[in-house]
């Protein structure tokens, strides 16, 4: 295949022609989200609506239609995810504090006994984690993470000793360092780029996967207390 087909000199005309509709879509979606927030009195609903505003941002970035744009979507996604995670936690903590200790804090167990919850999770989690490991990087991390998350969510064992928690969190921190080392190797010793590539790819993979998995551990507290 010729080089100009592989990487053309300019952005293809289709993408250029789709730019205006795409940007307008992004703006409209953003506007709808903002409109929703502007008359929203309920904090939780406002939080959900910010998700919509984030979608507008993703469209604006994606509309550029180059490989660079794709690489920029990933940070955008991660930022969205991260902020929703942190803010929802703050919202919950605020409400629990507001209610004080009078609230019945012993959660209800889920009484449903679905077939899928006993057989599917292990199988799906294995598939997802294996696929995620093959993909590596952010994509793989997100997929494997979702797999772990789903698995812990639907398993019935409850209560994580806090040192295990810190252990997993620490492991993901170490993975982050691995990835930093990979990044440095790229610039300091460019001849070892393959090593750097693997360090980076699997560092990020392990990090993201563990983090997402830990979200599942938080979540299980709510869904599977028996």
């Amino acid at each position, binding site marked *: 295949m010729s080089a100009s087909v592989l990487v053309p000199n300019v952005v293809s005309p289709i993408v250029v022609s789709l730019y205006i509709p795409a940007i307008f879509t992004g703006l409209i979606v953003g506007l709808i989200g903002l409109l929703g927030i502007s008359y929203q009195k309920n904090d939780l609903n406002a939080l959900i609506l910010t998700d919509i505003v984030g979608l507008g941002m993703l469209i604006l970035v994606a509309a550029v239609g180059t490989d660079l744009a794709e690489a920029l979507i990933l940070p955008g996604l991660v930022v969205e995810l991260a902020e929703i995670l942190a803010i929802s936690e703050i919202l919950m903590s605020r409400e629990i504090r507001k209610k004080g200790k009078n609230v019945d804090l012993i959660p*209800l167990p*889920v*009484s*449903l006994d*679905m077939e*899928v*919850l006993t057989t*599917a999770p292990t199988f*799906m989690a294995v*598939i*997802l984690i294996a*696929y995620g490991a093959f993909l590596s990087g952010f994509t793989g991390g997100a*997929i494997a993470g*979702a797999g772990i998350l*789903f698995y812990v*969510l*639907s398993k019935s064992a409850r209560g994580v000793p806090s040192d295990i928690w810190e252990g997993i969190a620490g492991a993901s921190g170490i993975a982050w360092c691995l990835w930093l080392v990979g990044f440095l190797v790229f610039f300091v010793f460019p001849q070892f780029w393959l090593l750097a590539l693997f360090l980076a790819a699997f560092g990020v993979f392990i990090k993201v996967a563990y983090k997402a998995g830990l979200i599942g551990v938080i979540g299980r507290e*709510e*869904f599977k207390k028996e």
Partner: protein
Amino acid sequence: MYLDFINITTVSAAVLFIGTAGIIALPKPLDKVIMFALLQAGFVGMIVAAKYLDVAMAAAIFDSVSTIILLIAIIKINEVRQKKKTSQEEENLA
């Protein structure tokens, strides 16, 4: 000749729109989840039309994952509401 338009893309688009309409219009959350499965099916069809089978595979797996998550959440929240209602009624009786 109109049959030319019936290919995997258009069918998926139709399924997507049906799913959308269903999610928006149906009142009960559980019905919405069923329509959501339809939406996901249409989406997977779209990806298949684009010939990215690995993406379609991932989408298919995540389809079921998110459906299950939604189901758990809805059942759980119904339970919570039920309990609240009964406790309120008890209070009223007392």
